[in-house]
């Protein structure tokens, strides 16, 4: 038997050697080419403007200006507060879900995830129409609503994976529950908390729509100032300097976040006793009650009242705002219904591009050789670029195009943002394929193509389905890059129109914005349901 197996395996190995190398180079060319043109080139355009053409004097002038210092302080300040607030709110929820089995636990996990997949502008609108908070407090609140899922999933998932016997061993050694938490649980959780903090920090630092909607014109961060100086003031030099600053900081942030997250994504070996146990004591019940209330307060109340608000007309209820979606185009903007159709079209386009680029990149990366590592680095670049920086980079790099006609740039930009998610889901799926499975198919006489179909492809398909859906959802909600690229002539997306509605006074326009927000949220929900059949198991990498 051994003599018949060995040649078969060797044949596969040789096939992948000489002819395979050329083929893989061709595979790699597509994603690398796409990312070089649509990510690297715009970044270079900003960098050239900042470093080369501007001159050191102008650069120093912008960086020492009061406006920049204020923006920097505000950006860092709201980021720090958002991270702390989100962790404080998220930890009790993570604790309850990780430590206890109770009725409604699965529902709680699923509900927490909802705001995270919703467009940021929908979350901002939801917090805005509550009218409870304003200014930076509202900004931080929206960041908590949006990001709390990161804490619950990342920290909660890690927490639930702690072997219960460790906690019990500590208790028998004389540690009180508080001491167990301080000396055992928290040290074990620390990498997950840090990873969550880095991700929340990254999202808050580059937050755009939330700050425009809830901060109003008086509040600004580096991200919103790139937009303001580029679009409203026409000072591209200042915008370029800010874009350069944002590129460096966000890239550094992303590297740290990715490294921290890798530490908590390693599979744990061996048979473990799960931590979760039934609710027994009064303290258990209190924890579950607190967690449930927090989810109610942070997720259900704002989103629920957004839905209710979309039906509120004057003192009563009616369909006025929903009808307005099809009827009244706001001044200088696209009709809401048309914007929704545009959004869906772009989302489909972006998902297809992200799928093709991401899947090809993942296949090359999963081999783990030098070419794979190069593609991996290139493929993850978009994570280190904020959406606004990307949009601004397009503005500088693609001056040759008439933006009123080149509406295809919008789905392309959206696809760029979606590619890392596709890669992030597909690579682990491919790496999880057992080499023995490939060998077994080969030993049974399968051709290299058959081997790939029966092992790798089987792992790839479910991962790609989820990630592609996520890319489509991201595209539906994308606002930062789109603001630079969309024009009223046929390329205004739903978030852009929603922002225009919100930024004008008048109850009718506000009401229409709420209806549009709910409609957009429903579209995202439909995608999530179609794509992710494993209910409550999370989307993409969360």
């Amino acid at each position: 038997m051994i003599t018949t197996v060995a040649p078969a395996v060797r044949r596969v190995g040789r096939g992948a050697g000489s002819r395979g190398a050329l083929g893989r180079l061709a595979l790699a060319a597509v994603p690398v080419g796409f990312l070089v043109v649509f990510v690297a080139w715009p970044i270079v355009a900003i960098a050239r403007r900042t470093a080369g053409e501007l001159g050191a004097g102008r650069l120093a002038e912008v960086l020492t200006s009061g406006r920049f210092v204020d923006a920097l302080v505000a950006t860092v300040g709201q980021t720090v507060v958002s991270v702390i607030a989100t962790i404080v709110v998220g930890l009790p929820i993570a604790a309850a879900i990780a430590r206890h089995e109770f009725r409604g636990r699965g529902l709680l996990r699923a509900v927490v995830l909802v705001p995270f997949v919703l467009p940021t502008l929908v979350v901002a609108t939801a917090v805005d129409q509550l009218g409870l908070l304003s200014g930076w407090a509202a900004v931080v609140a929206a960041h908590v609503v949006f990001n709390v899922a990161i804490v619950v999933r990342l920290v909660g998932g890690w927490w639930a994976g702690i072997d219960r016997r460790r906690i019990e061993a500590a208790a028998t050694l004389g540690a009180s529950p508080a001491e167990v938490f301080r000396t055992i649980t928290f040290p074990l959780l620390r990498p997950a908390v840090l990873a969550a903090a880095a991700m929340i920090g990254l999202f808050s630092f580059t937050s755009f729509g939330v700050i425009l909607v809830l901060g109003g014109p008086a509040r600004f961060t580096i991200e919103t100032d790139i937009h303001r100086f580029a679009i409203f003031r026409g000072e591209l030099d200042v915008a370029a300097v800010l874009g350069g600053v944002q590129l460096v900081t966000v890239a550094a942030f992303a590297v740290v976040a990715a490294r921290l997250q890798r530490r908590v994504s390693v599979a744990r070996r061996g048979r473990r006793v799960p931590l979760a146990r039934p609710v027994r004591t009064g303290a258990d019940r209190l924890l579950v009650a607190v967690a449930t209330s927090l989810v109610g307060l942070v997720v259900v109340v704002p989103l629920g009242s957004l839905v209710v608000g979309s039906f509120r007309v004057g003192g009563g209820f009616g369909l006025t705002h929903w009808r307005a979606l099809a009827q009244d185009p706001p001044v200088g903007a696209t009709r809401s219904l048309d914007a929704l159709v545009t959004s869906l079209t772009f989302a489909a386009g972006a998902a297809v591009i992200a799928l093709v680029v991401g899947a090809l990149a993942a296949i090359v990366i999963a081999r783990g050789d030098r070419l794979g590592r190069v593609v991996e680095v290139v493929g993850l670049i978009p994570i280190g670029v904020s959406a606004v920086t990307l949009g601004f980079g397009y503005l500088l790099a693609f001056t040759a195009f008439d933006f009123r006609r080149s509406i295809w740039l919008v789905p392309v930009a959206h696809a760029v943002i979606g590619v890392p998610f596709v890669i992030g889901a597909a690579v682990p799926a491919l790496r999880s394929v057992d080499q023995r499975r490939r060998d077994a198919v080969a030993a049974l006489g399968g051709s290299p193509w058959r081997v790939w179909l029966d092992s790798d492809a089987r792992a790839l398909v479910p991962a790609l389905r989820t990630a592609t859906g996520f890319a489509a959802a991201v595209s539906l909600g994308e606002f930062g890059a789109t603001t630079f690229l969309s024009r009223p002539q046929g390329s205004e997306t739903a978030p852009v129109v929603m922002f225009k509605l919100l930024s004008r006074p008048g109850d009718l326009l506000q009401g229409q914005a709420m209806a549009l927000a709910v409609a957009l949220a429903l579209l995202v929900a439909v995608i999530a349901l179609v794509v992710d059949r494993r209910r409550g198991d999370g989307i993409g990498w969360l």
Partner: protein
Amino acid sequence: MSGDGLTLAGVTVRYGETVAVDDVSLELAPGEVVALLGPSGCGKSTLLRAIAGLEPLAAGSIAAGGRDLHGVPTHRRDLGLMFQEHVLFDHLDVAGNVAYGLERQGVGAGERQARVAELLLLVGLDGFGRRRVESLSGGEAQRVALARALAPSPSLVMLDEPLGALDRSRRDELTGVLRRVLTELGQTALHVTHDQTEAFAVADRVAVMRAGRLVQVAPPHELWHSPADRFVAEFVGHRNLIEVDGRMEIWPERAVVLEPIDGTDGGGGLPGTVTEARFDDGEWVHEVQLGDGSTLTSRSTRRSDIGGAVRCRIDRQRVIVIAD
């Protein structure tokens, strides 16, 4: 001497409708090592968890050192608990793990260091203090877990299948370490296992458990020589259980002597055919099929051929009669 003794009276644990531990009463003298022996799922681990205060009692009481443990939370019970695997604190080094219980007691740094060194020496890991937990082998990790459980001198230490995850040679080696350490410290201990050899090697007395109930509690030799019933007899390793005149007899494997049927034999005995022969622990073990279809297992230094006709002679002096 750090043993205080343990008294279980009518201990019952329920999971919903199922009774996991059913009316168990057991006494451990100070310094005594008792093994809780039974098949998996018989409730032995649950009993351990109940003693530790990790499962609530449905009925009965637990007292350690004369102190009733009702309502006392786990961390105030003064117990040590050692599990099968994966329970060292991997954010601490070896010394940090062993010192953990001492820190909780507020023992000073100097005394703590001395005690940690003493225990590591005792379990054969002298000089391992600064090692990272991930760098340990399975056997070493279990030695650290043992040292950690013993360091605070608990009134009772409980070992839940402590050697279950180890390969056989490692297991034999650690069984010896376990026995020596517990004896040397005079530590009262309750050792849960499903392995009869391990139970006999470590314990002064063995409590056999089945479906939540204690079937028999006795020293190893007594368990072997007068098992309470068929279940205990089979569980401690007896193979030949024979019904004779309405009562149960055990013919130990060495009590069954094989003699070839070759014309010169004296006749009598139980004639049969050898169906299996294997070499185990320096002796030959034969399976013999008798005329009525039943089989006997025999153990001797002489080899018989498979397929050969033999007479089984029974050494009546070694036969055990089961009381029930």
